[in-house]
């Protein structure tokens, strides 16, 4: 293409301006952040994930949906090697972050988890103060220079997780003393405090009331500007609201992966259809 064509040739000025839009959107088109190829996961003899290929795009929210026990959490945990901590668990296949194999011997799982953060299905605050729970990550990864910076990161993270108002006057109290929903938001604050590139969220709203849920969804929307987010959810409405891509898992298989709008208006596979419409297959 010549320069003249690129600028819209000898077309009027307005057309030239319009012609530049596609290149602008091409620049912002999401890029590949993580990939999985032929991924299998076994717990002893139990074949929990079967030959899964999936792309996780940058600046995109990807929802994992599927019936209980289909392997969503298992697969999510592969993305930051959280399965390493389970003795009987064996992961095969190729998983990459920015094109690099995350299961390579050279990769330090602790560093990896700073880049690929996680919020677990069950809230799991450390038996420490609220402040220390959030400060933990920035401290061990040396992300802050002084106490004032750390205070700032803690406050911002708690605010974004919409917990600040409820805990600002008792930051020194144990995180385990909070209600279930508050604990979950504390874990979200802890996960975003290290500014991960990818955030994995396993049913982050299952213990939250509608207001806190809406705030978390707003946070997800906000984080998407800079991060890549993967969320496991049992709420079809939530998947539809927050994600741009949806992956449907069934009995360890990735049955369908597509644009969220496509999945919720006209899914390709009958199993997806039966699941999202609440039918007996």
């Amino acid at each position, binding site marked *: 293409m010549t320069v003249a064509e690129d600028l819209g040739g000898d077309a009027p000025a307005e057309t030239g301006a319009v012609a530049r839009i596609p290149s602008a959107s091409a620049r912002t088109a999401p890029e590949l952040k993580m990939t999985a190829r032929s991924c299998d996961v076994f717990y002893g003899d139990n074949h929990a994930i079967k030959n899964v290929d999936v792309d996780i795009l940058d600046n995109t929210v990807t929802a994992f949906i599927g019936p209980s026990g289909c392997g969503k959490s298992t697969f999510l945990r592969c993305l930051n090697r959280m399965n390493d901590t389970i003795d009987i668990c064996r992961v095969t296949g190729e998983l990459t972050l920015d094109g690099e194999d995350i299961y390579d011997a050279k990769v330090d799982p602790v560093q990896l988890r700073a880049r690929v953060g996680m919020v677990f299905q069950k809230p799991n605050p450390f038996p420490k103060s609220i402040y220390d729970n959030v400060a933990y990550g920035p401290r061990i990864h040396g992300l802050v220079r002084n106490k004032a910076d750390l205070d700032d990161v803690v406050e911002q993270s708690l605010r974004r997780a919409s917990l600040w108002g409820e805990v600002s006057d008792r930051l020194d109290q144990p995180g385990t003393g909070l209600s279930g929903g508050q604990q979950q938001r504390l874990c979200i604050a802890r996960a975003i405090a290290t500014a991960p590139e990818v955030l994995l969220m396993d049913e982050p709203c299952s213990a939250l009331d509608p207001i806190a849920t809406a705030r978390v969804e707003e946070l997800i929307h906000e984080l998407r500007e800079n991060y890549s987010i993967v969320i496991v959810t049992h709420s*079809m409405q939530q998947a*539809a609201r927050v994600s741009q891509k949806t992956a449907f898992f069934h009995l360890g298989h990735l049955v369908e992966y597509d644009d969220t709008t496509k999945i*919720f*208006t006209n899914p390709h596979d009958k199993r997806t*259809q039966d699941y999202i*419409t*609440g*039918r*007996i*297959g």
Partner: protein
Amino acid sequence: MGPHIVSAFDSDLQLLNRKIAEMGGLAEEQLSSALKAIAQRDVELAAEVVKGDKKLDEMEMEIEEAAIRTLALRQPVATDLRDTVAALKVASTLERIGDLSKSIARVADILSQHRPLLVVAPVVRMGRQVLGQLSEVLDAYTSRDTPLAVSVWRRDVEVDVTYNSLFREILTYMMEDPRTIGVCSQLMFVAKNLERIGDHSTFIAEMTYYIVEGEQLGDDRPKGDPIDADIAVDMPD
């Protein structure tokens, strides 16, 4: 497709579809009576059609309410969502078909004040053709029969062809006997309304296709390019 786990959801969708079927049947009846009224210059039957249209308006509202309730309470997705949205759209299409039938019936009054006109017969014949299209497309919708829907959709071109030749026929009639200009322009208007009912039927065909296939039928439908006569405008209600 299997039933829903929440069986009340199935009842909701079944209710919607039953109501559409009922409303469709009534719309067919209204058109059929309107045609009979102009064929037989039957003023009383025409008045009944006008009165019967209220029932269609009511049914449209009922379906709208039921569909909105389903959207709010069940948050349907995929095929269920298409079903519900299509029901809304088809109900309003049937309501418009009802309005057009009512306008057609009203022409019976004017016809009854004239000596019988030969040119009424081909208008009624066109009406039967359109009625046939409507009944078939309603069958297709109810049974989610896409091939039948597509066939109706393709055949709308025949209605357009009939309309164009009828338009010329009425025009010739008017020129031959200027005293009939007033009443013939009413017949042109009937023909135009029938042509529109034909278009509405193709829309129901498109909705059928959409529900089943999840995609729009596209717009490469053969069209007869119906004459858009200034004379064939809406008559005041």
